[in-house]
């Protein structure tokens, strides 16, 4: 008998060898994390595309057990279990993924559901979305804390701060030279287009990139009307790639009667960017704002 058991135990390490081989090959390393989670690392659910991006940047994707439907980048985030739209979460649904922490912005809800999840003993990290650079930094910090990767998070914060500083310098340098473009942000993922007033993500991003929001005097989003657009007199129309797709192309978009009386229409001055990249306030924000700034300059030239 003992000989038999010895024989078996001598053969068993084979499995470990296989795992080691898999771990060594890059393919295995990419495929494994979903299954071979380190039991000690906290498991996360992220509710906001930008927060999910931070998780991937910190290399914590193996700890990710669920994301919301706004988490579309990187592509791998699309195939994670989806907890639904960020504003219509379900308490049992969240808990069924057995996360140790849920990281969300204060735009997520309903509040009752988050309370229920909290009362079931799951840590809920809420990041205030105030459309500032601080928001991006708080997201990195919160993910680092929740994922037990604080050192990596600090590194990322320093790197992002440096990038952001450069972008801000460039924008400030350009601001002294000429007038700021008047920019109108149009969101039309459904039939009726909305334009952004103050206290919106688009308002802040336009300012960061060296432009002026062509609309003021109201907060949030309003339906687009022809006369209001004419009086706003935007030099540039800014919109999301998704809005152009919803319209069926750039030509169709310009056919909207509301836009016909704007300075932007004469020069067909349109800038499109991915909605999550443009408005997400995620770690790609410095490059997104830099790109937007370049496009502003090009449009005015």
């Amino acid at each position, binding site marked *: 008998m003992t000989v038999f058991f010895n024989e078996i135990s001598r053969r068993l390490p084979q499995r470990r060898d296989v795992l080691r081989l898999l771990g060594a090959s890059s393919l295995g390393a990419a495929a494994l994390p979903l299954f071979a989670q380190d039991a000690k690392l906290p498991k996360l659910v992220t509710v906001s595309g930008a927060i999910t991006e931070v998780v991937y940047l910190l290399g914590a994707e193996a700890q990710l057990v669920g994301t919301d439907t706004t988490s579309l980048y990187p592509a791998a985030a699309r195939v994670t279990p989806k907890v*639904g739209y960020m504003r*219509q979460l379900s308490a*049992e*649904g969240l808990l*069924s993924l057995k996360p140790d922490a849920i990281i969300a912005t204060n735009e997520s809800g309903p509040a*009752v*559901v988050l309370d*229920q999840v909290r009362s079931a*003993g799951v840590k809920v990290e809420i990041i205030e979305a105030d459309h500032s650079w601080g928001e991006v930094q708080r997201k990195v910090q919160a993910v680092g804390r929740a994922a037990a990767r604080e050192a990596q998070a600090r590194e990322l914060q320093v790197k992002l701060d440096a990038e952001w500083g450069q972008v801000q310098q460039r924008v400030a340098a350009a601001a002294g030279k000429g007038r700021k473009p008047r920019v109108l942000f149009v969101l039309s993922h459904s039939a009726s287009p909305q334009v952004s007033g103050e206290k919106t993500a688009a308002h802040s991003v336009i300012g960061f990139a060296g432009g002026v929001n062509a609309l003021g005097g109201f907060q949030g989003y309003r339906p687009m009307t022809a006369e209001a657009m004419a009086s706003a007199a935007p030099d540039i129309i800014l919109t999301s790639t998704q809005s152009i797709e919803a319209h069926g192309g750039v030509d169709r978009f310009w056919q909207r009667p509301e836009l016909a009386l704007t300075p932007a229409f004469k020069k067909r001055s349109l800038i499109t960017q991915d909605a999550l990249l443009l408005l997400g306030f995620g770690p790609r924000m410095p490059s997104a704002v830099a790109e937007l700034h370049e496009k502003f300059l090009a449009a005015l030239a």
Partner: protein
Amino acid sequence: MTQRFTARAVLGGSLMLLVVAFLVGAVSGAYAISLPQLWNVLATLGQGADKSPEHLVFLNIRLPRLVLGVAAGAGLGMAGTLMQGLFRNPLADPGLVGISSGAALAAGVTIILGAWLWPVLPRTLGSWTLVLMAFGGGLSVTLLIYGLSRSEGGTRMALMLLAGIAVNALAGAGLGFLSVMATDEQLRSLQFWLLGSLGGARWSAVLLVAVAVLLSCVAARSLAEPLNAIALGEAQAALLGVDVERTKRRAIVVTAVAVGAVTATTGIIGFIGLIAPHWVRMVAGPDHRVVLPASALLGAALVLAADTVARTAMAPAELPLGVLTAFIGVPMFLWMLRRFRGRI
């Protein structure tokens, strides 16, 4: 199958459906709780020592939701029966004649304009504000519809339906206007009313609704016999010694309390008030002494069944309940219409 079922069979059957729906709802959900675990949770109830995740999920999230489902379904089923009996019209339903949307509009006004219109109110009434406002909205619409559709010799069906359609349109416009005025935060709360969901079930709110529905069901019991008499015509009912006006007033208040309390907590859940009483009448006949309690039981079973699908079909995400009550209820209802065509 020309024989109608006895009252006992119908009540027993509805109760059994409710018990089955409750048990299925109790063991299914996004969070897997096995039967032994559930037993463990129930067995250690009240000891308070063990706080396993299953314990917390079941007692704080799933159970209040099930109780809210029972209360909402019972309230809507019972209110639908009362409305149909009162108007002597098979189309009357708290949703169709605009009571639900009246309650939702009042709730919307409270959410979005409450702090500005009447700042003292939320401070004095607290979390009851919304429930009372929704109740008030439901009651005013009921009175309005009732007043408009009354003419000599009783209520007129065409008037009632037109008034209901008008009120629904007005409430829709009001909610649309409010959504333009609303901040993002308020818009989210408002959206909740329009979709209908049991997701906001917290024990404090659930107990409130359960008490309101229970009281209105108790009050409705004494209305069964007068409503049976009114079914013969209001003049005949008066000859039989029924105080017709008093019966109507009480039925209106009971309906508004039940629908107002339910809608205030869950938003608009359609079709239950229409389907449950019809389904019962098809198998049990028109006696309100049977139809009232059986519709309450069946309405509760339907809401629980729909909510179980809402919770599990897309887990870990969730479907809106209002969509599912229609998806589940309407095909069943159409099948019943075909099956028991001769009895409508």
